[in-house]
């Protein structure tokens, strides 16, 4: 039968990992639908998906291009506010809003990139820190657009194709597909000449220039892409909760996303998902349930902070590489044992 090699080929396709993740997430959906899991579990995993998408954007910026942004949360918030305005005021539906909500954030991102990316990467880090403050203040004060501290609410039913209303389960389903799509697209990108150009400019600017890579242009690509994905995360946030306010969009969230990228493994897309699972999922699902300590504010954050410092100092490759490192250690132990046996044989 010729089925076996074909199956093997499908299973080893690089997209297979992403499909496994999607299947896992769909299982969560199923179990929530039949009420085996609480509805809060579904919410938590929805946010894991949202964080994964935002973190993939930062991963392209940091892991592949070597640039730090501390303003990610601001762009997520902006995407959320744009979504709210488009759906509430212009009464647009799901798919249209998905694309349109990204426009203004990406344009702002490109403008910011134009003025900071010609210089050393540290300027981007500091500029995004400043921009995050500007965003926060704007969200609070632009009451006509954002509703200020009282927030922005979507009062109408969110529909897809202007006809089918969406409930939590269908929104989650859509989010899983969006995640799968994003992972496949970004995988294409980073394994093409663009991804190689990113890595070259990250590791060696002279080599990049000598090989004809316009460093400024590629940095803009990376930053615009990360902004687009951050904005998409905001879209997912707003469509699910149907309410937005200025509070979540602060430095803490930007740093959480940074932690996800670092913990999961720079340059790894699967790793980003695991990072989100660890940094957002574990505190929500496990830590907060621990009596006394669990309820204290700052527990999740302390957990993240400890993890990122430990990982950076002792295992910078990130969580996603742990299985392969374990495999290498096992190989070494086996090789040592073989050598030892051979020596014994020779002696005899």
């Amino acid at each position, binding site marked *: 039968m010729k089925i076996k090699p074909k199956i093997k080929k499908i299973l080893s396709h690089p997209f297979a990992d992403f499909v496994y993740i999607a299947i896992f997430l769909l299982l969560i959906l199923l179990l929530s639908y039949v009420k085996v899991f609480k509805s809060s579990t579904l919410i938590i995993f929805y946010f894991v998906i949202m964080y994964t998408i935002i973190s993939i954007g930062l991963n392209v910026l940091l892991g592949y291009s070597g640039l730090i942004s501390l303003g990610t949360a601001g762009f997520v918030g902006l995407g959320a506010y744009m979504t709210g305005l488009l759906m509430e005021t212009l009464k647009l539906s799901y798919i249209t809003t998905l694309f349109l909500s990204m426009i203004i954030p990406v344009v702002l991102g490109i403008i910011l990139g134009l003025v900071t990316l010609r210089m050393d990467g540290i300027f981007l880090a500091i500029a995004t820190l*400043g921009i995050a403050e*500007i965003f926060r203040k704007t969200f609070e004060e632009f009451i006509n657009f954002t509703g200020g501290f009282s927030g922005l609410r979507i009062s109408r039913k969110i529909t897809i194709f202007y006809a089918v209303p969406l409930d939590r389960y269908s929104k989650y389903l859509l989010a899983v597909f969006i995640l799968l799509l994003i992972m496949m697209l970004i995988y294409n990108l980073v394994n093409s000449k663009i991804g190689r150009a990113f890595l070259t400019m990250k590791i060696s600017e002279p080599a990049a220039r000598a090989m004809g890579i316009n460093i400024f242009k590629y940095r803009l690509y990376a930053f615009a892409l990360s902004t687009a994905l951050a904005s998409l995360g905001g879209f997912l946030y707003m469509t699910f909760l149907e309410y937005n306010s200025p509070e979540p969009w602060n430095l803490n969230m930007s740093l959480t996303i940074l932690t996800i990228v670092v913990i999961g493994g720079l340059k790894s897309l699967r790793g980003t998902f695991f990072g989100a699972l660890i940094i957002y999922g574990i505190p929500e699902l496990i830590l907060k349930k621990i009596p006394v300590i669990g309820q204290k504010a700052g527990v999740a954050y302390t957990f993240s*902070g400890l993890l990122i410092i430990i990982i950076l*100092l002792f295992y910078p490759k990130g969580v996603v590489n742990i299985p392969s490192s374990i495999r290498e250690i096992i190989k070494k132990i086996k090789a040592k044992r073989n050598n030892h046996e051979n020596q014994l044989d020779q002696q005899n």
Partner: protein
Amino acid sequence: MDSLIQIIFRSIEMGGIYSLAAFGITLIFRSSNMTNFAQGSMAMFNAYISYILMKSLGFSTPLAALFGVIISLVIGGVNYLTIIKKAENASSVAKQIITMGLIILLTGLAPIIFGTDPVYFPTILPNKTFTVLGSAITYNGLFNIGVSVILVTVLFLLLKYTRFGLGIRMTASDKETAMLMGVRTDMVTLFAWAIAGAFGLISAIMIAPMSGVQPNMMNTIQIAALISCVLGGLNKFWGPIVAAYIFAIGRNVLLLYVSSTWGEQILYVLIILIINLRPQGLFGRKEIKKV
């Protein structure tokens, strides 16, 4: 309505506060080649400790501040020895991220250890005022300005005229050569992190009466300090100091005389323009990358 004198006075006071934080960042950058994004968070954490000294042990405010400074020196040093030193061989991006990890850790620990209730930290000097040309100036404000100027001056004198200061300048200029010439660069770096911690705490104590002691009390100062470093140029130690005052004065001028909602944003735009025209900062020297 605040008079011009009060505005100038307050700008100089804020400039002093920013300059202390900026000096800490400069010291660390030039001796460890690392941008310390956690300057503000460490200051916040130490400020909480000072508050505890004051509230739980009944220290007077000045005494709590003094002990806080000593503790911040120790914590700054310990931080270097345990975490920063291990990261010495990492890439520059990794080093920046480690300081961001510190931000996360400290911001997370603060509410756990110190609770979430708002905390009030009084001024060092009692809140009395005196008049200059018809405007009321606080003694405390004058004290803050004095402390900033004196501390920065003392450190400059130390840098310029002592052997240890020479060691710091050598390490800042070329670490490997300094090591070869017998400079204890690890001591220099330890000192830099300790002083940076102390300066950070002092600036936190100065701003505490206005902002309260809470996890994001240092956010504005952190950004202002980083921007001052970039604006002033990190080649020389005094660049960021002067830039800090320029930043503070510029900010107030724009907020009060141009626009109260967009003043800060305009300031950032101006600074971005300046940096684009002069990437080495107002007072820095252009560095040519050797290929």
